[in-house]
């Protein structure tokens, strides 16, 4: 066989195949172009899943009449001019392939009007053959209509799914765009039916509500990490990160809300949707011990960082990225999500209908009181907390409380029962521990003050809070309290390092080895004594004393891998929790143990103080919330 250069149209079709796989790829390219053109309103109409026809309409900058034919030329783009521009890409597209490729496999009509022009112009390219440019009346913006997709490439057509399947793919694309660009109003219609509509008011929460539903949106908490240096501006073109460290924003679900698949962790890098297993893993790690296995969070994570530190030119579909400092990015994501999750105050709710009003009230209600408390110096715990052997009638304690001026309600409203005055809870000494040096999340809002009502089945404590009833699993709650206390103690006194009789030789994979090498000082701070012994081999001379039982080469390898792993960088608390989890579980009170009212109150007070109070070490919930709304609904009052 002789070697020969392919005919241009054959080459074009081959190249087009990479970019244009199915209607969804066209939608992606066209919508991204519209976003790059500065549109604030983009609508997408599909007929038969986009196989028959597909139209993208935007109100962006448009294309001048004389540039229209050029738009379909291969490697023609307005987005970059030189190679260096690739390092500071602010636009979604840049390859200059999209329109050319689409034009090679379909009949495309491009109509566009720049705002200054009196009228628009239109050009039709049918399977790579351009027609004449003709004037057309239209509002400013661009309308691209694609028909006869793959009509001349039966091989490709054969692999198309049903119209519904293709439409679903298109919807995924629009959902990603809607989440990344909450300031753009997206409308998706399929065969005349509305598929998705976002308001474009710039609020990510509203976008989530549109893409998922209201209930999901209400279960989301805001992620904020890194300096808010105005990196997510309104106009996509003006994103200029100042710092090199990644900024992480977005929304993530409370542990109470979850999905059974990993597909609901949406990650955007510089507003570009990406698929990244390590980043997905980083998000999941942030829910460590908060979600049971098989449950996955719903997250929209927006990462902003210097375009020079991201390489998006890995794949034509641009869903894969490479980071110059991947460890830093993963750590930032994990830290940000973890901080957001730990800051949630919401216990899993019993009745999903009741979400709507419960959430904001819960977060806001104790707030002013807490601020007032911050000014008050520590005072000994009030007398009410002292357990007494003698029987105290239920009303008795209450009287004692109001009789004591130290605990008499001072600033809160009169309708709050005296027993759960905020003073009660906030004066309990909190074993403050220096958190790991990297993660300093803002002090999480605490559980609202709860009034203990009693114990059910000698296993659950029923309490009343500002918004309904909270049911507490006594074993899970105690386990969590003990775990945090023990971890805090270790941190406070510093874990001593236990020398080994003979150093253990551990062989590591090259990347773990590099990571260990990089983080030797961190590991030394964790009480490891490690010498570099050879390429990919280390000598472990001492281990943290509590880990003495794991001083086996395989165990150490796993442990080190975990400690320095990219996903856990900057998240040095798991190993302690890991080691202590079983101890805490054994030390905690069991289900089936009767607790006196004083013991119940003490447990609830302590639970109010812990950081990750909503789940035990194994990820089961400690608290279930039955809101007043839910009660009212159940009783038909609403």
């Amino acid at each position, binding site marked *: 066989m002789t070697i020969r250069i392919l005919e241009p149209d054959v080459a074009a079709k081959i190249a087009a195949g990479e970019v244009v796989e199915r209607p969804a790829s066209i939608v992606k390219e066209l919508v991204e172009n519209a976003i790059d053109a500065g549109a604030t309103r983009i609508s997408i109409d599909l007929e038969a899943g986009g196989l028959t026809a597909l139209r993208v309409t935007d109100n962006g900058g448009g294309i001048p009449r004389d540039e229209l034919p050029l738009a379909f030329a291969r490697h023609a783009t307005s987005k970059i001019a030189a190679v260096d521009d690739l390092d500071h890409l602010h636009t979604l597209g840049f390859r200059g392939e999209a329109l050319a490729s689409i034009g090679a496999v379909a009949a495309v009509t491009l109509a566009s009007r720049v705002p200054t022009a009196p009228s628009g112009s239109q050009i039709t390219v049918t399977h790579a053959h351009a027609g004449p440019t003709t004037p057309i009346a239209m509002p400013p913006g661009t309308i691209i209509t694609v028909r006869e997709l793959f009509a001349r490439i039966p091989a490709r057509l054969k692999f198309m799914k049903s119209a519904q399947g293709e439409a679903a793919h298109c919807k995924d694309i629009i959902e990603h765009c809607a989440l990344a660009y909450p300031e753009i109003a997206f409308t998706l219609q399929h065969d005349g039916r509305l598929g998705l509509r976002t308001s474009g008011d710039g609020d990510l929460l509203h976008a989530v509500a549109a893409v998922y539903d209201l209930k999901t949106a209400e279960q989301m908490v805001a992620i904020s990490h890194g300096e808010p240096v105005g990196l997510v501006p309104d106009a996509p073109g003006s994103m200029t990160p100042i710092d090199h460290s990644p900024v992480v924003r977005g929304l993530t679900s409370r542990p109470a809300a979850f999905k059974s698949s990993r597909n609901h962790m949406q990650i955007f890098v510089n507003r570009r949707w990406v698929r990244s297993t390590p980043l997905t893993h980083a998000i999941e790690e942030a829910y460590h011990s908060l979600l049971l296995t098989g449950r996955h969070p719903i997250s929209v994570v927006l990462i902003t960082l210097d375009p020079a530190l991201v390489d998006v030119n890995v794949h034509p579909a641009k869903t894969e990225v490479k980071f110059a400092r991947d460890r830093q990015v993963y750590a930032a994501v994990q830290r940000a999500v973890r901080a957001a999750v730990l800051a949630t105050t919401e216990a899993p709710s019993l009745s999903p209908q009741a979400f709507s009003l419960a959430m904001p009230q819960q977060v806001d209600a104790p707030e002013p009181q807490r601020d007032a408390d911050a000014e008050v110096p520590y005072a000994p715990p009030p007398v009410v907390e002292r357990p007494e052997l003698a029987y105290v009638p239920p009303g008795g304690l209450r009287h004692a409380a109001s009789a004591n001026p130290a605990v008499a309600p001072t600033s809160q409203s009169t309708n709050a029962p005296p027993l759960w005055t905020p003073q009660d809870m906030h004066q309990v000494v909190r074993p403050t521990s220096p958190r790991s040096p990297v993660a300093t999340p803002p002090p999480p809002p605490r559980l609202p003050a709860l009034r203990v009502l009693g114990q059910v089945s000698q296993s659950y404590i029923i309490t009343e809070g500002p918004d309904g009833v909270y049911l507490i699993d006594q074993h899970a709650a105690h386990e969590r309290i003990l775990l945090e206390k023990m971890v805090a103690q270790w941190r406070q006194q510093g874990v001593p390092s236990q020398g080994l009789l003979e150093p253990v030789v551990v062989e590591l994979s090259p990347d773990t080895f590099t990571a260990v090498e990089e983080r030797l000082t961190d590991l030394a701070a964790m009480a490891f004594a490690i010498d570099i012994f050879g390429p990919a081999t280390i000598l472990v001379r001492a281990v943290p004393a509590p880990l003495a039982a794991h001083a086996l080469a395989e165990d150490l390898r796993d442990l080190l891998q975990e400690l320095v792993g990219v996903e856990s960088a900057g998240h040095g608390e798991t190993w302690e929790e890991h080691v*202590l989890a079983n101890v805490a579980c054994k030390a905690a009170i069991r289900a089936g143990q009767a607790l006196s009212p004083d013991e119940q109150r003490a447990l609830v007070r302590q639970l109010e103080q812990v950081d990750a109070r909503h789940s035990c070490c194994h990820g089961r919930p400690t608290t279930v919330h039955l809101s007043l709304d839910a009660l009212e609904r159940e009783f038909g009052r609403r």
Partner: protein
Amino acid sequence: MKFNCKQSELSKGLATVGHAVSTRSTLPVLANLLLTIEGDHLRLSATNLEIAITCLVPAQVQEGGSTTVPAKLLTDFVNALGPGEVELSPLPGGIHGLRVRGGRSEANIRGMDPSEFPVIQRLDGEGGAAILDCGELRSMISQTAFAAATDDARPIFTGVFMRVRDSRLTFAAADTFRLAVRSTELPGVDNRFGELLIPARSLNELAKVLPTEGNVEMFISPARNQAMFRAAGVEMTANLIEGQFVNYEAIMPKSHQTRVVIPTTAMRDAVKRTSLFARTESAGNIVRITVTPGNEGLTPGVVTLQATNDEFGDATSTVDAVVDGPGLDILFNIKYVSDMLAVIDAPELVLELNTAQQPGVLKPQGTQTYSYIVMPLHSR
């Protein structure tokens, strides 16, 4: 099989072999005992496939044979019978099992086919034998086996290393943080006995079944995969651990800067008192040992033990001691110290130290046969 024997002797034999009965196994026959008539003795055997114990009980034999019955049931029933003669005979109708009759009680215990019972190898002196006093062997086991690791993740550390060389028998056991080495004179044994690694768990069982006095013979199987211990009326066979033990001699410190001699009882009491504060998860079992030399014979040297628990408080105990060399401050896991103090009976204890980062050596005063090496902890 049919025979009579004394309830007390049978009961004692059953208790001995009971140490090798497997309590949890997927092989049902391992919960059984094998009873075989051997001359004018009843031979009881049990195995958990890790060790096997056999025991001879004098009997008046009327008819030979063998059978297997559930160990626990037979033992409990025989124990419940009063003193006197017990008669054991086969179940009628050819069913595997035993009829046990004592006084006016009788039980029919169903068993299994004796051919299902694992064959227990019987060794002789081919691979070299060592003869040792029972008491000495028991002491060697108790002073070393505790230092072995208990988790199976590190097989070689779960064993006690045994070596015969130049008429000395040495036992050594270590986990990754401490090492116990004990040796004894063993005249007349040849070096063919060599080295072997025997599970500490098996040795602990051996210590329980050894008679209080007399000698015990040790053999190695020709394949060097089993060891057998034979004393009056009882035999134990144990599987050996494959693998190379650490070069423990290299770990043993050759010199020291500070040498402390402490009364054992006073030290044991001080450790007991301070350990109350050290032995919690959060306090991490740490004891701080401060060695202060005496002043020209005017004041004695002292050893101070201190443990702190952030939650509950702290405790300090001081013991007078003869201190030779500079003072020192060193941290140990208190469990490692108390484990050793529990197995020595010498009136005085020697503690040899170099620096706070180097291993410490504990040994009974006045003997060169036992050393215990512990790695210190260091806080940063």
